[in-house]
């Protein structure tokens, strides 16, 4: 970039690649730690794991886009026209995960209902007759 000499920009790139590598190592170590691979019997709750991992990944994404892809040096109009549309994804994530969680909830509901029916039929011995009785 115009405002930096070659040596300065090389130094900056080297600094950020080291930061990215360190974050990646932290991610892996945290994943292994939270699942009990490093210290026997240590388990972190899923939501803590997910939150920490997502935050670290977003930091990595920011560094790649701003430092390596030079988004830092683009004019505000370009930055906004590229980054603002990705905010739509926030709603997509909320909507689809909400829906997915609901499928899961209903699955166990349906499973429980199915179990009830099966047990009733079994205890009566002859399933066909019971259903006929119920229909009448």
């Amino acid at each position, binding site marked *: 970039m115009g405002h930096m000499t*070659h040596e300065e920009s*090389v130094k900056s790139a080297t600094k950020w690649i080291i930061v990215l*590598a360190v974050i*990646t190592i932290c991610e892996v170590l945290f994943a292994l730690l939270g699942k009990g*691979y490093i210290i026997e019997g240590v388990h972190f709750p899923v939501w803590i794991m997910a939150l920490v991992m997502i935050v670290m990944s977003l930091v990595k994404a920011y560094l790649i886009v701003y430092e390596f*892809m030079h988004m830092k040096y683009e004019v505000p109009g*370009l930055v906004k026209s590229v980054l603002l549309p990705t905010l739509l994804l926030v709603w997509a*994530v909320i909507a689809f995960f909400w829906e997915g969680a609901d499928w*899961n909830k209903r699955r166990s509901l349906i499973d429980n209902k199915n179990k009830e029916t099966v047990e009733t039929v079994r205890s009566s011995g002859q399933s066909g007759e019971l259903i006929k009785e119920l229909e009448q």
Partner: protein
Amino acid sequence: MAETLTHTDKHHDHHDHHEGENWDGGAQPFKASYGKLMMWYFLLSDAFTFAGFLIAYGALRIAMPSWPIADKVFSTFPGGFHEKPLYFVTLMTFILLFSSYTMVRAVQDGHREYKKGIVVWMALTILGGLAFLGCQAWEWNTLIGKEHMTITKNPFFTTTEHGTYLDPELGAMVPGETILLHKIQTAHGADDHGDHGHGGDHGHADDHGDHDHHLPGFTTTDATYNSIGDQKYAVVDKNGFILHKYTVQDENGITINGEDGKPLVKTESLGPKAFGALFFFITGFHGFHVFSGVVFLIIIMVNVASGLYEKRRNGYEMVEKIGLYWHFVDLVWVFVFLVFYLI
């Protein structure tokens, strides 16, 4: 360029000067060249494609009572190492990360118009891309060839407390543990598998000894499905997968009989089916991006070496554009790594 300008100026002679500045093609909105700006918008659209895939993955995963735990699924390392959670994929991540660094260096040498440096750094980037693709080929080969994961079949399942995927009859299972189905047998005394021959299985199962089935009442020489002892709800197929077995009923709850007069029995795999399809399509789509990136890198490196961009006098802009694409591929991997391997 100069010809174009005079041509448009003729048409805009009677307009005032300001409008001519904006519309005669010489101005750069956003102070970026057309090529770089369009690369940014292509990457934005590509980000939406990947986001669509990853959101579908998340929605399906959240809808399942359990999901294969990544550090059990991806735990092999070349050279016969097993039970090495995340080691191999961490290596892949570092390869891609450092190829991003070599790409930055190539772009920086482009800014100071140092041809030799650009070629060397681009060659290193290409090597990184090829190494990543090689790793992915090995990983896929392990999953497909040795662990029998396909887009329709998922041999991995995680036991849950609610019983959907937990069957205590299949052996002592800890809730929440991910199991590769044809590895369950090792819990049933596989230590002694030197004592008896591999039987009819020998031909196609030579590379994984855990295909020896030691479940009570089960032999591999039988037909397609075998029952496991007096197990009512599970069978083992000829590849050693344990499948959930169920009888088919009509809407009145009456058991349907097959052609042989016996109750119609069907089977389904125990693990969430979508896992294989999601894994292969998403990592495959990313791998395809890496592959096409390598192809473009090679073309542009050859053009740099041949002096084409020197003639164009546009400051190696093509190197910057492929640089943007290559960093984007690395960026996507950050999120693939996050959702498939870390969480």
